[in-house]
């Protein structure tokens, strides 16, 4: 349904922002738990967030490549607003691609504090 899909659908559209949401939740929930229960494990937390970030970015890049294909590799310019199957596909493809770009940036921004955090605040 999500990958190797011939045509885009709402699931392929929603997948990249969902990955962003899950990554965001993971960073903050893991940070909260580590700081409350095991503040000395800050380096392990950093590694876990790095791994989650790479995983999320890989997923988003793959989804973006698929969306690029659904868009027809930019064969025609937006707005894709005529009532044809092709335009519907191109519209969903382009929207998904833009959401992929947004999600990728958001995932990177969300992970950045992990690089700089020096201690758990008392």
């Amino acid at each position: 349904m999500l990958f190797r899909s011939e045509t885009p659908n709402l699931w392929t559209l929603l997948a990249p922002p969902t990955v962003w949401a899950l990554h965001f939740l993971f960073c903050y929930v893991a940070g909260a738990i580590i700081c409350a229960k095991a503040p000395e494990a800050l380096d392990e937390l950093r590694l876990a967030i790095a791994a989650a970030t790479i995983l999320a970015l890989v997923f988003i890049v793959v989804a973006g490549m698929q969306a690029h294909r659904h868009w027809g590799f930019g064969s025609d310019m937006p707005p894709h607003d005529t009532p044809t199957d092709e335009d519907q596909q191109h519209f969903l493809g382009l929207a998904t691609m833009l959401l992929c770009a947004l999600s990728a940036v958001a995932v990177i921004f969300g992970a950045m504090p992990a690089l700089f955090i020096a201690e758990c605040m008392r």
Partner: protein
Amino acid sequence: MLLGACSGPQSALDPAGREASEVALLFWVMLVGAAIIWLVVIGAAMFGGKWQKQPLSERAGLRIVLYGGAVIPTIVLAALLVFGLRLMPMLRAGEPELRITMSGEQYWWRVTYAAPDGSKVESANELRLPAGRAAEITLDSVDVIHSFWIPSLAGKMDMIPGRTNRLVLHPERTGIYRGVCAEFCGRSHAFMAFPVVVMEPAAFEAWLAREAAPALSKADNGAFLANGCGGCHTVRGTQATGSIGPDLTHFADRQSIGAGILPNTPDNRRRFIAETETLKPGVRMPSFGALPPAELGAIAAYLGSLE
């Protein structure tokens, strides 16, 4: 007039501490950056409106939207994020050489220094710090949310009932600055301030030793005790041991009275006792204006002798 807020005892643009310097630098970077972006955008609009006679191709237009609207803003925001995140751990860095607890109460500040020998030194409504040394301020509140802000030294930090916050200050330049409550806390919120005296380390140590000692006063404290002042205020070394209001042990040493609202002069001391509720609406201390002038004078003189 326009530059009135750019220097002086309460300006984030005239930093006297490490944290405030970083905040001021961040402000200038953002201001200059915003000015450049504004010039580019307005310049492009003027160019498009005045000189560019041929419409751009759709592809070129989309490219401008993509780069100008998405790619460049993302890069700028990422750079600012890195800049800001880099500042945060630095603001708490270093093992503090001095620990102070400040508690917000409507509408004054309880200040407790940890002396080198481990004992606690109670004071109020004034903060003294040694220049060039890190001081950790532990912040809490007993009633409502207050916020502790010394613009010349650092950013602000909330004082929240039931929670202890921590702020590390690195004052660098000696001088007298002004701290304020930066979270609306009631009728006299605007009258809740305090002077911050940054001293040479040796002078600070001498001051702290003096502050730790009991009050030395040759003046008569009969009127002060007879009118019940000691029920709320402490003057160490006397029978006045109240803890509801600010400690007054070395009151004459302080820069201001009423939590930063008036200079500490004989006239103002007398006025504050007589017109407390007028000068500071909502305060818990009643006005003692009904006292005979001689008694008022005696209390004010006693306070002025507490060195």
